[in-house]
């Protein structure tokens, strides 16, 4: 009885956000259109790169072992995970520094509900849905075109699970960054940091090799596990199931739990500093 019903509250957030989005319909449409344009431009860029690689004469074109359509699955996964992150968390994390600045966080702290839950999910961004559909369409288009790939049913079960885990890892990074903004007082470039850090996750992890690349790959796989976010789900669907992949796939689970725990810790610490630093 005394625990709030989180599901009911979440549903109310989603509902209120939808009402809000529908009041600003033009805005909503613009957001949708440009979100899609952005994704398509990115896709266009890689199409150009693959075309150049084919055009050089040797008939082979792959980036670190990813053929064009495998890479499209990779991109689709990026769009998919991003649509989840943008849909659920992005607006909220951006809002957090604003809440700190204006003192709106005070109200969140008064509510008999977990503060992190409240500030992480208040605004649901429904304009992420078309992106999600685009990602699914791109998957449907690309998978049959991957040469010599037969998918095992288990790959279709694992894929969504790993997409969710990837989303949660990105969420952890994001809320961790947003919480640091409470420490720093103001954080204009929060969004930039986010972009720069997650930028690493947008590429196949195989490209990071050599004396500099391997340690980098290690850091962004095991210490800040953002390389896991897209790579693990994408490989689950774009490449044949192989036993050598299991250690990484297992690690992804650990990484998800670990990042959530650490971001939770950072968030609590930031709240503590807010509570003792403000008047």
């Amino acid at each position, binding site marked *: 009885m005394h625990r709030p019903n989180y599901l009911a509250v979440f549903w109310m957030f989603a509902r209120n956000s939808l009402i809000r989005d529908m009041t600003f319909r033009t805005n909503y449409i613009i957001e949708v259109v440009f979100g899609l344009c952005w994704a398509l431009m990115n896709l266009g860029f890689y199409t150009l790169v693959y075309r150049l*690689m084919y055009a*050089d004469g040797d008939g082979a074109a792959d980036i670190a072992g990813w053929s064009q359509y495998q890479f499209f699955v990779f991109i689709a996964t990026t769009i998919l995970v991003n649509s989840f992150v943008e849909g659920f968390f992005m607006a909220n994390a951006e809002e957090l520094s604003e809440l700190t600045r204006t003192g709106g966080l005070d109200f969140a702290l008064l509510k008999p509900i977990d503060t992190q839950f409240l500030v992480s999910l208040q605004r649901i961004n429904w304009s992420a849905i078309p992106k999600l559909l685009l990602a699914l369409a791109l998957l449907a288009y690309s998978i049959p075109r991957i040469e010599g790939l037969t998918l095992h049913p288990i790959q279709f079960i694992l894929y969504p699970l790993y997409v969710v885990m990837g989303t949660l890892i990105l969420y952890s990074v994001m809320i961790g960054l947003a919480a640091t903004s409470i420490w720093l007082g103001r954080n204009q470039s929060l969004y930039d940091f986010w972009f720069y850090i997650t930028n*690493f996750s947008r590429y196949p992890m195989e490209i990071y090799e050599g004396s500099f690349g391997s340690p980098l790959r290690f850091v962004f796989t095991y210490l800040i596990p953002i390389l896991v976010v897209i790579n693990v789900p994408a490989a689950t669907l774009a490449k044949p199931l192989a036993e050598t992949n299991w250690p990484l796939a297992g690690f992804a689970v650990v990484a998800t739990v670990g990042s959530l725990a650490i971001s939770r810790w950072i968030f609590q610490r930031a709240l503590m500093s807010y509570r003792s630093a403000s008047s």
Partner: protein
Amino acid sequence: MLARAQIWWTIFTMCVAERLAYRGDFVLGTTMRFLPMITQIFLWTAVFASSSNGKLVGFTRNDIIAYYLLTMVARAFSSMPGLASGIARQIRDGEIKKFLIQPIDLIGFSLLARMGHKLVYYGVAIGPFALVFYLCRGFFPGWPPAEYLAAFLLSLVLSFLLGFFLEASLGLAGFWTLEISSLLFVYMLFNFFFSGHMFPLEILPEPWRTWVAWMPLKYLAYFPAAVFLQKIPADQLWQEVGVLVAWTAFFFFLSRRLMHAGFRRYSGYGG
């Protein structure tokens, strides 16, 4: 004249001070800026690994990486984060009223503020920039001849002015439409794709390539980098700089026209 100079100096130092007050953002932001470069190096290494002759549209892997590094320099001059949206916000909130009564105009103030921000940025960023360029010196073909170097430096300064007046014009559109965020989004999208920030423009197929060659956007990132790498034929070099000057002048006059027309419209409403 002296009094005017003093006002300008005060505004300038104020903006610098404001910028410095938030050091956490600042140092982190500057350092983070180089992170995407690392992935670019790895990505292009992987792309060229698949190429048989080590050349794509006339670029070697090293050329491409040098290109990206140079566009970062260009963008350090030409990018104007928050300028257009800031002007639009000031218009919306009625904050621009103060420019009607103060002895300085909106564009002049913004330009000084921007210069202040940029100078502080360079003051801090020159360290990381120098370090990265030193570490990456192997990717560069060497210093260009004096003529190209001069054109490069000139194009950086001009790209700052072009970027400023272009974005100021966009922001001033806020006098006529309340919601300019969509306009800015289009601009950002085009800028990212067609300024050469994302890839050397040579990669674009026709007819896009010809199109983009005539747009002002390419001067914000592609052009300075291409000059440094001598991708512009010598006979077109100064002609291109001339076009850059023309675009800068165009947006300078456009922004002033927009500002005056906007203020007339604004005071017409009785604010």
